[in-house]
């Protein structure tokens, strides 16, 4: 794969007047944004026909930095807004940039229902195990025992596995990587963007300031090393026992299938309606 220079990608796709970003040193969101833009660039998607949608949180600021149509909405609701955009104009390609708290806590219900409907959308999910913007509270993804400001003695709840959740709810494509799997990441985003129906690419993404600091992982390199220790490729995981997988995070492609998408189903539904009314043969 030929990689263009980052500057070229930046100059082509970012809004200079919106920079600098709000992201902290060591944050992984910028890297994932770059992967996404590289995927768009590689696929030569028409910038005028792609809409970025987001909710609230650090990662949700991304649509503001990119030179596309963008809707920065309310906390957790991005996919509900996106449902309206896509269904009202199916010619648009919709990308939702979400965080783990945004997608899996306050937006958890919108997430599973958007997947159930197989809404045509690509979700890029930044999972940093915490609420970064509001100062490091525990998230529904925080591994048990790790600390946040709202569980200062270590989280006592079970975390969600968002990728597995997405597979179970019926997504057409689901992959999870950490930010240092950049080629796999770009390729997964490319795959996701080319599919109809719901696609999700999750990234384990470092948040040294709000998450790492409280969990003896003060810098991005420390977090990345921790991810390396934590993550198990899906092919390897298949040969491991549940005990061995305890506390691990599986990375790789979780599913790749082609169930009929919401847009397709609705087109058929319109035909069915007209037939039922005797308007069409």
């Amino acid at each position, binding site marked *: 794969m030929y990689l263009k220079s980052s500057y070229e990608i930046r100059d082509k796709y970012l*809004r200079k*007047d*919106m920079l600098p970003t709000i992201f902290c040193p060591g944050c992984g969101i910028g890297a994932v944004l770059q992967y996404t833009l590289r995927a768009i660039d590689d696929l030569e998607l028409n*910038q*005028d*026909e792609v*809409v970025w*949608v987001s909710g609230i949180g650090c990662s949700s*600021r991304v*649509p*503001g930095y990119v*030179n*596309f*149509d*963008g*809707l*920065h*909405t*309310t906390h957790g*609701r991005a996919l*509900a*807004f*996106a*449902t*309206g*955009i*896509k*269904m*009202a*104009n199916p*010619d*648009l390609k919709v990308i939702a940039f979400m965080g783990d708290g945004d997608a899996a806590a306050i937006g958890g*219900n*919108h997430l599973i*229902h958007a997947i159930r409907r197989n809404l045509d959308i690509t979700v890029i999910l930044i999972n940093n195990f915490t609420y970064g913007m509001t100062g490091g509270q525990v998230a529904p993804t925080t591994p048990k025992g790790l600390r946040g400001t709202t569980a200062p003695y270590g989280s006592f709840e079970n975390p969600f596995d968002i990728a597995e959740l997405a597979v179970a709810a019926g997504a057409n494509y689901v992959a999870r990587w950490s930010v240092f799997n950049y080629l796999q990441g770009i390729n997964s985003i490319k795959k996701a963007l080319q599919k109809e129906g719901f696609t999700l690419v999750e990234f384990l993404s470092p948040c040294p300031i709000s998450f790492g600091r409280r969990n003896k992982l003060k810098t991005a390199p420390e977090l990345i090393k921790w991810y390396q220790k934590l993550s198990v490729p899906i092919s390897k995981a298949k040969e491991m026992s549940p005990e061995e997988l305890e506390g691990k995070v599986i990375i790789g492609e979780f599913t790749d299938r082609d169930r009929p998408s919401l847009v397709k189903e*609705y087109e058929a*539904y*319109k035909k*069915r*309606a*007209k037939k039922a*009314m005797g*308007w069409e043969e």
Partner: protein
Amino acid sequence: MRYPFPVGTVDFIQGDEAIARAAILAGCRFYAGYPITPASEIFEAMSIYMPLVDGVSIQMEDEIGSIAAVVGASWAGAKSMTATSGPGFSLMMENLGYAIMTETPLVLVNVQRSGPSTGQPTLAAQGDLMQAIWGTHGDHSLIVLAPATVQEAFDMTIKAFNLAEKYRTPVILLTDAEVGHMRERVYAPHPDELELIYRKLPANEEEAKYPFGDIHGDLVPPMPVFGKGHHTYVTGLTHDEKGRPKTVESEIHEKLLKRIVEKIEKNKKDIVDYEGYGLEDAEIVIIGFGIVTRSAMRAVKELRKKGIKAGLLKLNVLWPFDFELIERIAEKAGKIYVVEMNLGQLYHMVKEGANGKVPVELIPKIGGEIHTPKEIIERIKDNLR
């Protein structure tokens, strides 16, 4: 264009059905909702009609998602609507604020039922007036219309879309279970008879750069819809004229919010609508909105038969509120009664408008039943004794 219901003729239909048909005639092509009594009939009618007119009707996971989808569809260029009641209306408050902040045209129908909480799901009330105007957090303005008949539910739905598109704002159609469920004779015009307004789009690339700027001096920026190459960024954060987040600059926040409020307030003359009966010589004026004004009208007629100079002011638009109109009435009347199906909401606005010039008395009623004309007459006559 083929319509799945009769147009250019009269029909005998429920208020909820009338709202759905009028929305389609107004050009609404996106509906998202969640089932709730007594608004479900609007959704069910939309579900029948929308796929036939190549529109979308979709059942979301809740009312939060419903209004969110409606906002999204509006930015994708569609005239969009949702309808709900009681608890669902409360859930919509968050994204109603988003729609106000992002100046997104949409129509939100609230078929009021008796609350709070689950309350009396099948019975009418007018307890959501203050919530309709002030329910979402922060300073804001929007438009609230209130029909009293099935024909008005029809006509005001079309008006709601026109106002939403003209002023780039959410418009609330504040109706109730009684209007929603009763059937009346309605004239549904042929689309050619309708004057429909569509949002102002940017005339060129330069205009499109200012999706939140008063570039025409009319306080309403052109709306660059998605997919036209404008690369518009829309955020619920305080933003400048180009849509860029400016969250700590107080002067930008003040400028934005003042414009959002003023585009409604300064166009009050264009928006407000009311009907008066006997106001020329009325010593006693009854003021109300929606369903209860029908009983009030009967009461006024009966009182006049008995030689009591009564009049009725029926408010068709509840926000922006015409405080000056109330003051003009207060200057002439001897007494104002506010009739409403709650424990006093419009009352406070009328009192403010009356400005102490005349006594204002509340005739409240809750429990799901509408005031009978007799109840209103007796209350007024008791005071005359």
